[in-house]
């Protein structure tokens, strides 16, 4: 639910060069941010301050804090920006703290919400109104698209099922409250215990979901780019070149095998997971080669973009083998790259490139990982391909905000699930005290929170009454 007047937060910029900005806007921005630091931020003044953000009991991270006092800020509200050099996990830990139910002062910002506030508070030009509306209505659509695409509908499928279960529990409780004058079997102390049992189960399912969500999220939320090619096609050098000095190796992600190296890369408008896998073999020998080859092929086929490398310096006659290697994979989107361009003269290059075009039926981008030749152009091309693959079409101008908001999508889901777990827990406690009306409130809250993931919850009371009337014979 969009509400104005409360405090919102989001990881406002994907890690550009490892730097992350957490942006908090609203009346509670200062106290909310202050909680993240040790010592707590006191007398935050306009401009830059420094502090140490608490990640866990052992880890403190240096951060720059920018404070913009209302109305002199982007949104017109108090804004605190926390700038830190940190990876995604660190950011997530901080966001989690911001949203934690204990000192809950703010919530995850919705798509385009900072911009919307900025507009509503008269901070950006009226002529931009249309663009704002477009971003909001547009991002809504992309949200659904990407949610479905990235999570393969799995998350919503699970949460919807749990939602239905919660609504069933709710209608049992509500029937006991609103129809207690009827002679109905469900109004008994056992019914409460039954509901408590069912709630516990539902909570268990959500807990499982959360436990699995962390690694799932890392791979699911960013577009992925795979580097493929025959052995010695220059893949690893390219991988290192693309990630440069700032590369961060993401380890422990579930869907990667030992043979696949993964890192995150930031280009123009996007961040992606990039991975390098073992060279593809036409005829794998032995079980290990076959398995690692299969894993590589699967990873490549599932990624948004595949960079297919061919060593352009080798003899023209050997290119046929590369074609056969390429035919092993069925990528969604392929980008052909001729590596080791520094080894040939310009006339040799153009001759070999022409031949490559002929046998592959595709244009090759010339690069050299050694000199850096062509790398920037390659990055730009990857960026364009990712946008095209995520959005399915060519990107229109003015949708920059959409791309950023999308990255926050799955952490929002996670937050929703976490909130729901908390609410169900409280519902269980209230039920234990035979406080059905409070239990009901907490279950409603959980339904609402899970409802934020899938379709709108809308009219919980009608859904509950429908269930009661269709299940029980009530009414005099």
């Amino acid at each position, binding site marked *: *639910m*969009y*509400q*104005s*007047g*409360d405090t919102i937060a989001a990881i406002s910029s994907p890690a550009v060069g490892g730097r992350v900005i957490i942006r908090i806007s609203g009346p509670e921005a200062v106290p909310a941010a202050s909680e993240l630091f040790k010592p707590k931020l006191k007398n935050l003044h306009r401009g830059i301050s420094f502090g140490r953000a608490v990640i866990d009991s052992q880890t403190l991270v240096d951060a720059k804090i920018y404070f913009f006092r209302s109305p002199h800020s982007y949104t017109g509200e108090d804004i605190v920006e926390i700038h830190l050099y940190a990876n995604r996990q660190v950011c997530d830990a901080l966001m989690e703290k911001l949203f934690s139910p204990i000192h*809950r002062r703010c919530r995850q910002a*919705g798509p*385009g*919400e900072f911009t*919307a506030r900025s*507009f*509503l508070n*008269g901070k950006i030009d*009226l002529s931009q*109104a*249309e663009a*704002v*509306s*477009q971003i*909001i*209505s547009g991002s*809504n659509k992309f949200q659904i698209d990407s949610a479905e695409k990235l999570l393969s509908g799995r998350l919503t499928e699970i949460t919807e099922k749990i939602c239905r279960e919660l609504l069933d529990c709710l209608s049992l409780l*509500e029937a*006991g*409250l*609103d*129809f*207690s*004058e*009827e*002679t109905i079997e469900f109004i008994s102390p056992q019914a409460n215990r039954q509901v408590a049992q069912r709630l516990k189960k539902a909570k268990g399912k959500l807990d499982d979901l959360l436990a699995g969500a962390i690694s799932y999220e890392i791979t699911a939320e960013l577009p992925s780019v795979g580097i493929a090619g025959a052995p010695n096609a220059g893949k690893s050098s390219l991988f290192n070149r693309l990630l440069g000095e700032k590369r961060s190796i993401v380890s422990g992600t579930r869907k990667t095998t030992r043979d696949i190296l993964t890192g995150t890369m930031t280009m123009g408008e996007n961040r992606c997971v990039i991975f390098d896998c073992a060279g593809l073999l036409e005829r794998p020998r032995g079980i290990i080669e076959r398995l690692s080859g299969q894993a590589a092929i699967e990873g490549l086929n599932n990624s948004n973009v595949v960079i297919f490398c061919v060593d352009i310096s080798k003899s023209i006659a050997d290119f046929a083998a590369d074609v056969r290697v390429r035919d092993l994979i069925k990528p969604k989107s392929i980008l052909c790259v001729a590596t080791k361009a520094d080894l040939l003269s310009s006339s040799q290059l153009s001759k070999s490139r022409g031949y490559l075009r002929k046998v592959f039926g595709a244009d090759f981008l010339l690069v050299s990982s050694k000199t850096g030749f062509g790398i920037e152009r390659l990055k730009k091309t990857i960026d364009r391909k990712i946008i095209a693959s995520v959005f399915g079409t060519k990107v229109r101008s003015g949708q920059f905000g959409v791309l950023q908001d999308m990255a926050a999508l799955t952490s929002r889901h996670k937050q929703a699930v976490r909130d729901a777990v908390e609410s169900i827990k*409280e519902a269980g406690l*209230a039920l234990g*005290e035979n*406080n*059905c*009306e*409070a239990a*009901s*409130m*907490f279950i*409603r*809250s959980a339904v*609402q929170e899970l409802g934020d993931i899938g379709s*709108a919850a*809308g*009219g919980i*009371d009608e859904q*509950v*009454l429908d269930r009661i*009337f269709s299940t029980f*014979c*009530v*009414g*005099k």
Partner: protein
Amino acid sequence: MKTKKFDCIVIGAGHAGVEAAFAAAKIGVKTALITLSSDSIARMSCNPAIGGLAKGQIVREVDALGGLMGLAADATGIQFRMLNRSKGPAVQSPRAQTDKFKYSQWIREALEQTKNLTIIEAMVMDLITEKNKIKAVACADGTIYPAQTVIIATGTFLNGIMHIGSEQFSGGRLNEPASNELSNCLQRLGLKIGRLKTGTPPRLDAATVDFSKCQLQPGDDEPVPFSFLNERIERTQIPCWITYTNEKIHKLISDNLDRAPLYTGQIKSTGPRYCPSIETKIVRFADKKQHQVFLEPEDENITTIYCNGISTSLPEDVQEKIVSLMAGTEKARIVHYGYAIEYDYCPPMQLQNNLETKLIEGLFLAGQINGTSGYEEAAGQGIIAGINAARKLQKAEPVILTRDQAYIAVLIDDLLTREMNEPYRMFTSRSEYRLSLRSDNADRRLTPIGKSAGLVSKTRWSKFQKKISDIERLKNYLIQTRIGGSSLWDDLRRPQNDLAGKLPDNEFVKAGRFSKEVIEACVIDAKYAGYLEKQARLVAGMQNLEKKKIPPALDYCSISHLRAEAKEKLSAFRPATLAQASRIGGVTPADIIVIQVHLKKYF
């Protein structure tokens, strides 16, 4: 042609009409209440009871605002029960069986003694308007009553058609004529009309019922009054009885479904799911071996019995057989047969928050005509329509209650933002503010509002102020007094040490001579304090949207990027605020932002 001028005219003297007329007159505008017969003022055409789950809260709210219903029920109640006693205070509701004749009589006398109020027996035939403003009402006897505000509260009388078996006849209630001209008139004025259905069970001659075969259902030992003005109920209570249907009856009904208007297609409109007829119960829940039937006395002398639980429109001979097969009523004589009634209503999306129609200025609608059911729901709308008609005449801002203030507001807001599929009845589950909309604190929520509207008597106000200051005093004591590290206030939240039960024996409480209500208020406030915080968080932000008004003339179709579904729904409902817009089905949070952006740009 005779004419007689009033400021406000109320058409219909049911539970909505009487509250509306009383409120308007009490505030000080010259009011006429037009009814077909003064004998039928505040008649209970359905069950002889006031209150019930969620409804009891509404009665308390009407009372807190300065209305009549609670006082009338206290004065004429014959059995009082506080429902949901085993549940939390938020869902406890008072209910009373009343002597329906005395109830009617009591209200009539109260109205006759009300300054500025004239009761007129007449049938309204036409509404006279000029440039979409109400000007006068015209009656069958030729009299014209000019007035700047008119409140229609005609219940089920508009084009009412009653069904008993294959028999159909025009009527608004048993033996009372329907009003067909008025419905046509509303349509002529451009209002849309829909159709709904409801029903009643047969009434029995009490002398012919053998109550020894039925289960006794006594009232509470200590009856709790509805009205905040009353401290206790002194009358002796009368019991109710419970009997059951059985498989013989179920078979009889199944065999006669081809004669049931609900199943032959004779009745086309929708009835309420929460008040199913006995034939519906038997068809829909065929596996149930018996259904409960409450035998409720309709008067203090127990002359007639209302069979609560077997509402029906089956033919008379089937009704007789049903009664003859039921334990205790084998030899009972039916005084009035059960019937179903179909009637016209005005889909309430045509109303504004103050219950005035969007189309005709000065024309207000209240009660069943808005698609609600229940005396209490009617009374709640009646008092608001009466207050707001008077406010309009006084050129004062309307009194608009908000969802966090009253069930009456939840009711009106739901009427204005929802598609109607059946007569609307209140349930506590309809309120997202359930923990704060309690029957015990209705006065704290609404009496100040009633006072500023000019409805609250001096007696009520001073009583209220005393209660408030006592609550404050006791609350301060509880918060400040610490025993073993924690305050008494915090201890009240922990049910295990039963501090609540011991509170009346506390020295401070004894010395302060706090009333039972004051102690109870503090105990409940303490118990809910933590939960209320959560409730507030859940609805946070809604408050802001409540304040954001939408210009009535807004053209939703001109808003670019608003989804087609949202355009359609919003154009139909025309919500008054962004909060209301957000509650309309099919309107998403993103739509709300898009509207906000549009409003900011152009308004």
